[in-house]
């Protein structure tokens, strides 16, 4: 059995590091792992996505349509965008972060209303985390992704100690304790909208 995690966000949100951390944790837990992420033009505020696939033997880094088990949304609209990749009744862990895309900024389109409800109506389980506020309380907005990782970790078969070890190895040395605190906050904060 392969577990498929799709990570979706906006260029500049730190998606590559987030994907790498999940991949490292799965790898150190003894699974075969493949990850991918888009890099390039999209970094300039465009849509970005990554994948982590783990299991006994994983071949392709790409997640086939209809097989996503978890969707980690760093931003609401990007969380909604990938719903079609997911298995019915799979889980979306999503930050309550809203970043307007260009066409919304220039008032040519509207940002969708109530995205958690939209995801629920598509048959997905949604766990929303106000990652930005949690991060801000901890004193640094850049901790939001780590808060989200904490929330995601609740659903994954990896011990907390492994996450904390990988965080230590992945973030700047002077932010290790803050990141570990953010992760623990994340494990406590999911807000679930059930089916």
């Amino acid at each position, binding site marked *: 059995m392969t577990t498929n995690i799709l990570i979706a966000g906006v260029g500049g949100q730190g998606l590559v590091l987030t994907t790498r951390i999940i991949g490292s944790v799965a790898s150190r837990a003894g699974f075969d792992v493949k990850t991918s992420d888009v890099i*390039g033009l999209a970094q*300039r505020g*465009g849509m970005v996505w990554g994948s982590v696939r783990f299991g006994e033997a994983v071949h392709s880094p790409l997640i086939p349509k209809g097989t996503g088990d978890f969707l980690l949304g760093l931003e609401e609209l990007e969380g909604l*965008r990938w719903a079609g990749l997911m298995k019915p009744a799979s889980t979306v862990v999503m930050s309550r972060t809203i970043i307007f895309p260009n066409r919304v*900024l220039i008032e040519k389109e509207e940002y969708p209303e109530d995205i958690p409800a939209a995801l629920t109506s598509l048959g997905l389980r949604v766990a929303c985390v106000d990652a930005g506020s949690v991060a801000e309380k901890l*004193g640094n907005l850049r901790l939001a992704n780590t808060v989200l990782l904490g929330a995601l970790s609740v659903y994954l078969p990896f011990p907390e100690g492994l996450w904390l070890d990988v965080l230590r190895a992945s973030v700047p040395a002077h932010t290790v304790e803050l990141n570990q605190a953010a992760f623990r906050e994340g494990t406590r904060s999911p807000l679930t909208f059930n089916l």
Partner: protein
Amino acid sequence: MSERVLLTGNQAIARGFWEAGGVVASSYPGSPTVEIMESLKDYADIHAHWAMNEKVALEIAIGGSFAGARSLVSMKHVGMNIAADPFMTFTQIRTHGGFVLVVGDDPGLSSSQNEQDSRYFAQFANCALLEPSNAQEAKDFVGIALGISEQYGMPVMLRLTSTLCHSRSTVALSERTEPAIAGFTPDQTRYCMLPPYANAQQYFMRERIAKLAAEAASLALDVYEDTGRRDVLFITSGLPYQCLRELDLGYSVYKLGLCYPLPISRLKEIAAAYAHVIVIEELMPFIETQLKAEGLAVQGKQYFPFTGELTTDRIREGLERAQILLASQLPVVVDPAVPKRTPMLCAGCPHRPVFHLLQKAKATVVGDIGCYSLGILEPFEVLKTNLSMGASLGIIQGMAMAQQTAHKAQPLVSVIGDGTFFHSGLSGFADIAKTKHNITVIVLDNRTTAMTGGQETPTTGDLGTATHTISIADVLGSLGIGDVTVADQFDYSSTKTVVLGAMKRDGLSVVIVTRPCALNFRIKEPHFYVDREICISCRACIGVNCPPISMKVYEGQSKKNSYIDPHMCVGCSVCSQVCPVKAIKRAEAREEEKA
């Protein structure tokens, strides 16, 4: 047991070069292969060099190989076009130090201007072509390629694709094999490509390819998975092989590692046992066409797309078209319709005021390659052409000539960044220097190669680690270009005066705008905010199209006013300068510093 780590395809290439005793490596940054050189820089034993363009990068690696050192050059697919001139002649030479050319194709054009299948260059240049399918193979194939290169006396091309470059998988590491570098031994018959020496090499190139094709099977680069079924054989290579494995179909698969020359006699022998042979490859029918030319009855591109990535889903759809698979009955989640999210200039990007004023001036602007290519998109839509690195300078001259003959002469403007200026703009400037047409070139000197992650350029200077700086104004002066003005584009009105003035003058005028890249140099000034009491909702600030600026209904209000997200704003001031009522004001300190 050796250490096993997760590496991207790019990191694996770097590791493979180090393990194989690589010495000289060069590159020019371009997605998807940027990270190869960035990773190579972590190995102290390697000369890891960012060159001014792909041609120079290739030539540096050629020099390393001439002197007997194992050498590598990496580039994105379109870089291959820049490097093709030395490559097509270099390949005639019997290689000395092992030479590997790593090319990253971009199926689906995720960050490129075309989708060329670079594998044809290998056939064109009579050199071997390897295609890895994961990071482990990417690492291993570098060492194998260098070995082939030395054994057969030919450069070897290693072809990657975007997803393979950026995806991580487990790699078993080895130690470095210390290289023995023979040094350069002069031999004009070998290294001087002129007749009669070059004539003889035409035969040499044929012979070495034939020899490699005959011995290919012994290199054990291919994988033949014989499941015992004889109805269908798939022949595939690269990442599509891994996607095909995902489908777990139970048919036999022949996975090629060496894609040029093909091990034809072995393939003929194996294929003869199957009722149907289907080639699954990304982009062009490179393998399929070779097999058909050898008389094999294979199928392929009639089922699979010739453009875009060949994902697991697309392979499955192709196999459904081929009636090998029944249509998928998986339950699905309905794909919701959502607004697109196109890339846009960053908060505080110094290109923004330039595009804004060119848009207002209704200028006809010839574009070039860099972050500033985003000037093509909404809401600026100011760049009217976009082609290849440095092309703006030639294109604008040709357009001016044609427009003049058509009695439609008009002021023409082009934009070019500092990275592109040094990559391939220098000869264009030498050419355009004495034009009589009304041409204004704006040099967007943001002092970095921003789009690819902020590599240094010759103008980075004290903002980076460079030991010497080249002044673009001095270069232009030495080319005999007299009409050069330097402007600070964050002073909007004076830059506007300079540009509009330049557009009124015949001949070449150059405006160099000098604000550095806000993202790469992490420039953050106290942010701006909207004084709602003054704001008249005119949306002038929305027109500068900065990520922090949107329209919102403030609490207790009925109509929308503009709003600036204080965390995203980096304080460039451009929006405040275009506001007609001075409603946009600077805060005393950044939001995060207030606490």
